[in-house]
């Protein structure tokens, strides 16, 4: 019951804020809606027992990336409205309709598949069983430790690759944005 209340509240807020993000006239407002959206998504993560990811979501997305967007919005302080010119060949409304159609189809698929293969999910198992922290009981209490363990053992090489990607992106961003190196 409580879970349902929380989920529906969050779902409505997340979708509403998502629509607000893409429909807000001012870019700054759009950014603000995005921040709140992300915070709500983080709350959703908490309800899904992913505390660490939730905190990272707040720290990296809300505290880092979106601040970057806000900076850029303020730097690109346009005198004329940024969306004044529209190319006649663009197809926004067709695209919207198409996106809605795809969504409808996906919902249809989802509903059908749930009906047809009821209960086939939730098999359990997974990586949580054989980590040194399996004595923690559920995934909840030792989430951070277990995630760290998996990240630094099974996914070590992707993890290092991600760090290299971040380094390269950092250098690339500096080179791109700096006026005189």
């Amino acid at each position, binding site marked *: 019951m409580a879970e349902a209340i929380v989920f529906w509240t969050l779902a409505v807020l997340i979708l509403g804020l998502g629509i607000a993000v893409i429909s807000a006239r001012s870019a700054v407002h759009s950014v603000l809606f995005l921040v709140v959206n992300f915070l709500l998504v983080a709350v959703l993560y908490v309800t899904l027992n992913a505390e660490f990811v939730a905190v990272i979501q707040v720290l990296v997305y809300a505290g880092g990336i979106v601040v970057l967007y806000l900076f850029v919005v303020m730097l690109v302080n346009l005198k004329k409205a940024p969306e004044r010119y529209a190319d006649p060949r663009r197809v926004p409304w067709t*695209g919207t309709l198409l996106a809605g159609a795809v969504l409808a189809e996906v919902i249809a698929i989802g509903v059908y598949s749930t009906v047809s293969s009821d209960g086939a999910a939730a098999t359990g198992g997974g990586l949580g069983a054989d980590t040194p922290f399996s004595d923690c009981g559920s995934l909840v209490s030792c989430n951070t430790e277990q995630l760290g363990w998996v990240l630094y053992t099974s996914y070590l090489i992707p993890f290092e690759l991600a760090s290299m990607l971040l380094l390269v992106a950092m250098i690339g961003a500096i080179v791109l944005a700096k006026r005189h190196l």
Partner: protein
Amino acid sequence: MESIWLIPLLPGIGAAINGLVGIRFFGKRLAGVLASFMMGWALWLSLVAFWELLGDEDRFHQVTVASWIPPIPLDTVDGIGSFSVDWSFTLDPLSAMMLLIVTGIGFLIHIYSIGYIEHEPRGGVARFFCYLNLFCFFMLTLVLGSNFLVMFVGWEGVGLCSYLLIGYWYQKKSASDAGKKAFIVNRIGDWGFVLGVFLVFFTFGTLDFRAVAEAASHMPVETAAVGFGVISAICLFLFIGATGKSAQIPLYVWLPDAMEGPTPVSALIHAATMVTAGVYMVCRNAVLFTHAPMVMEVVAIVGVLTALVAATIGLVQTDIKRVLAYSTVSQLGYMFLATGVGAFGAAAFHLMTHAFFKALLFLGSGSVIHGMNEEQDMRRMGGLRQYMPVTALTMAIGAVAIAGIPPFSGFFSKDEILFRTYLHHGVFVPDKVLWGLGVVTAMLTAFYMFRLINMTFFGAYRGPAWGHGAEDHGHDEDGHGHAWHGPHESPRWMTIPLVVLAVGAMLAGFVGVPIAFEAVWPWTATIEHFLHPSFVAEGAHAAEEAHHMSLLGELGLMAFSVLIALGGIWFAYRNYVERPEAAERLAESLAGPHRVLTNKYYVDELYDATVVRGTMGSAGGLWTVDRQVVDGAVNGTGWTTIAASWVSHVLDKYVVDGLVNLTAWLCGEASYAFRRAQTGLIQNYAFVTLLGVFAFVTWFLVAR
């Protein structure tokens, strides 16, 4: 003796310092002192080496400093030989003697030059001493080199230095022309020398002097009966080289012109050392030459003819240095005469004494020229002995020595040559003819030398007047442009070497006193004994041949030659001191021969008309051929190419390009519809992606 390689290197270092640093930074005195110090050091090392050689049983020492050319397989007469050359130096009696001459006289002349050259600009002084040191470096390399190639390095090097020093006053056209002439004429000789070296390697498979001599000593002597063989060919080629370097007929023409250079250069290079390189080279290869008697005969003939011709020209020259230059040519002829008759020791002996007195005479003439403010014409001198007593006295000693008056050095050496010539039995030439020509030359020598002395130092002063206003003119320290205060004695720097050389010219002969004087002088023919090991192959320590005739006959010959010389002196005294007008009368009465002699037998004109014009003419002809025929062909090819390429161009433009453009046009027309899809709007592309997703999802939905 281990450090003999250092002897050439020291002047080389001096040259490098003076050349690289000195021209920009050194003062006049510093450059001269540095160069002289290097020569003094080399002299000291030479003396030490000589002393050690005297103590050496073998009288032979070879030092290999480094490998020069690594072994290369090359064709020889005995199949494939290994051609390798080392930087090796040899010390034996002959090279030791030359070493002492070069370093000793070179050192004196360096000292003399400090005084002589002081009116030059500062950089020029360093340049001069750089060249002079460089010359000594190459000359010592030439002398010490123990194979043909190392000698050739020195041989070419001294030629280069000679060219540089003759053209020292390169602003003067005559000087630079003379330099070029010397260089080019020397090239002809070098051509012969190089061919000789090639042939030596091809024949013997080695270039080492000692090995070559050893090998040659086992080959038969190529007498007229045996015929003209390979050794003769080698010797002839080498002799061509010697004629170039030592100014013999027909390549002697460059030496008189070389007097355009500074006088110390004339003394060092063109009298004492470099021009004797040819003689040295022939002596060095004595074993080879003794195996080619026919070539020896040619050498003797060329030598004596050169001696005579040069002496006759010298009779009428009025330029003081040219007289000495022809005298040098003449004396070199004597030396070749000696080698030609097999008297290598006598040749080397005369080389040594000549180095002393000719260097002395040149330096004396330089002193005179210096004192007379660059005046070289003897007709504008006269009576100078009261102004420059030291010069006059030393030059007189030199003249007496060259004329062959006992007991001065020239007497001993020249007499030895004449004696050996007298004993010689020629192959083609009748006996005694060579001797007769030699004697005539001796008389002429005495005459023209004393003509020079008399015209210069005796009689009335005929030169230009000079002002007495010493106080009126500020004495300019730089030298140039300072007023001339009349003939004057030269500074100490110049007179001290004169005195030293005069002493040498007086005493040098006593190392080679003829055997005829055994009774009064116990150390006879010292130098011949000393040098003998250098003229025979290593294995063949054959006893020295005794050249004897009756004691009375020998003394008689001596007395005859002395008398001849005295006659020449008397004739000169009569014509130029007692009655100066007599010489002019004589010249008028013999106008034809006089004109021929004054114009040096028209040899330069002859060469100009034949060799120079021939070369120029053929070059012009070739140039015309080149321009008309070769260039025409090239241009024709060019025009043909242009025409062909025009055709190609038309084809390219309308056919090939047409095809290409057609293809492009077709592609462009065909792709019109596809092009429309590329709007450049990213969102349209995203839309297409979404379309793909839609299609996929729809398919998924329907397929289920």
